[in-house]
């Protein structure tokens, strides 16, 4: 990884330490009546290590600035490398955050084929079959164990039909 990127990460961690010191510890620890000694100690440690990390990154930058420039221009674009992963993350986030409202079966039925296509599935039907079969298997197992997956309209319909 490039020293410049290492430095940016170190500075980001230092910014988090400042936020923790000025806002999180007073509002989320002290205000709740809890002792702030241990959180302050950990925050101090993190700030110290981040500072050491930043200084080492700066040292590396001075050591090999030419090499870093030479690497530039050969890399594929950000979206080429991370586009698929970012899309998968977004879809996963929507799936998990929407599950409370939509229920497990419906959200997973939509998620699995979409995720399979993001992973590059060339088949049209296999992802749809996976999306249909897998949630129903989990539903069946949970039902047999007298437990419940997150409930939604499909679960309500199935319960109505099966009970």
């Amino acid at each position, binding site marked *: 990884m490039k020293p410049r990127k290492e430095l940016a990460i170190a500075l980001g961690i230092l910014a988090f330490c400042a936020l923790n010191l000025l806002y999180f510890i007073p509002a989320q620890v002290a205000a*709740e009546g*809890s002792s702030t000694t241990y959180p302050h100690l950990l925050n101090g440690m993190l700030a110290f290590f981040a500072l050491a990390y930043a200084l080492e990154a700066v040292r590396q930058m001075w050591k090999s600035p030419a090499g870093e420039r030479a690497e530039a221009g050969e890399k594929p674009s950000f979206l080429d490398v991370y586009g698929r992963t970012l899309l998968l993350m977004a879809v996963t986030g929507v799936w*998990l955050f929407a599950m409370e409202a939509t229920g497990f079966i419906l959200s997973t039925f939509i998620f699995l084929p979409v995720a399979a296509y993001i992973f590059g599935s060339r088949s049209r039907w296999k992802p749809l079959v996976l999306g249909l079969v897998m949630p129903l298997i989990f539903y069946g197992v949970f039902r047999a164990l007298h437990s419940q997956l997150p409930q939604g309209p499909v679960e309500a319909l199935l319960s109505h039909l099966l009970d």
Partner: protein
Amino acid sequence: MGDIFINLWQGTIYAFSPINLLAIVIGYAIGVIAGAIPGVMAVTAMVLILPFTFTLEPLFAIALLMGAYKGGAYAGSITATLVNIPGTPEAAATALDSYPMSQRGEQQRALELALWASVIGGTISNLLLIFTAPPLAEVALLLGPAEIAALILFSLTAVITLLGDSLLDIWKGFISITLGLMLAVIGLDNMSATRRYVFGFEDLDSGVPFVLCIIALLALSEVFIQCERVRQLHIEQGFKGVKPIPYTWPQRWKDFKFCLKDLIRSSFLGSLLGALPGIGATTTAFVCYGEARRSAKKDNRFGQGDPRGIAAPEAGNNAVAASSLIPLVTLGIPGSVAAAVMYGAFMIQGMIPGPMLMQERPEVIYGLFVLLVLTDFIGAFMVALPFIYVVRRLLRRLDFSLFFPGVMACCVVGVYSEEFNVFHLRLFFILGVLGYLMRKNGFSIPPFILAFILGPILERNTRTALLIGGGSLEVFYTSKVAMILLILAVASLVWALWRKARGAESAGGLAVPEEFKH
């Protein structure tokens, strides 16, 4: 010594049942399949099984997990041998010689060599665990809060000493540990029951669940990383057709005699490195390979299919499995991610591993030891040998684009079934993204997880020690044991910084490749 044999006998009676043997077979089979799939580690298989152990008998659950771990540890070498893709990071060292051997048509020889080396390494390590754990546990019972806190600090600093190849990696290791300790602070203060960092969410009062954290950081982040490699996975799936050469019994015996010295050395080296916190199987495998290469004569064929290049790393990385449990069963401190998963399995069963458990319920701990010994043999003879060919066929047909979404659905069900709480699914996603970002930027996950698990124990013992000492730090330097451990912690830190500053490489001049670190 007599007590060990009596307890072993009791453990055998307690553990030796058809159902536990079945658990080993099932666990080993799951481990072999998971370990053979590139991108799915042995620990990932354990993590996926973990939430489903809630309703199982303690030893059945533990046998299942140990089987999965040992099966996965071996199975990484199957794809490493057949298609030069290490199924697990530790199999990368094996691939250096097993793939060239397989290219010559000696696939069966390479796969069997890896299997027998795994069994020998695992068995030697199991015996060391059985005979060193009881006396260490007796010593551990004498430790007070100050000593335990100092021991945890030493464990956490020791984890970092072998991370990476530069000073940047050392500082990143410390940041990982501190972030793990910070994550463990979330929830109710374990001494005053006041809230910390809960941001108004009552669901966070009991802290971040352990199983959720492990699945998110190891499994979900791995799926995100595999998503980047998806094209590569599709391309690399092709198997080359090479005419197989049969592996005869005289040749087996000849190989055994030829590799014996390396097998024994690597087994002991792997056991020793495995008992130290945080080193892990990957580094151990490369160290063992480096040692075997260093001690070989000049006319060796390392890198071109030398049998010692398969036997040494396989014996070493499998020896880690049992010896990494030594800190767990003697001190209650998990020294590796696999041991951390075992720690979780014990907690799910309502037991806290450590010296007290060994004293109060020796049949469970010795039962575990017996199952460990059995796992290597049952796994090798009943599962691994027949499964080698099943796995090969399975890998040919595996569709990664369906497999990884399926793994995600299993993870979500596993996380949800821990407490049936939808809030945990959101937390799972956030931690998965955090794990991905950490791994992409070179921050190691194992120290983070170890710190997350050890954080509450460290805080509780430090505060108890301070209460005993009336708020004074004197309690830490009046105890000789605590003082020695603190000096060791500082010394290991100074040594690590000095070593990295000099740019030293791993033992044997063979560093762990960047793509196999996590």
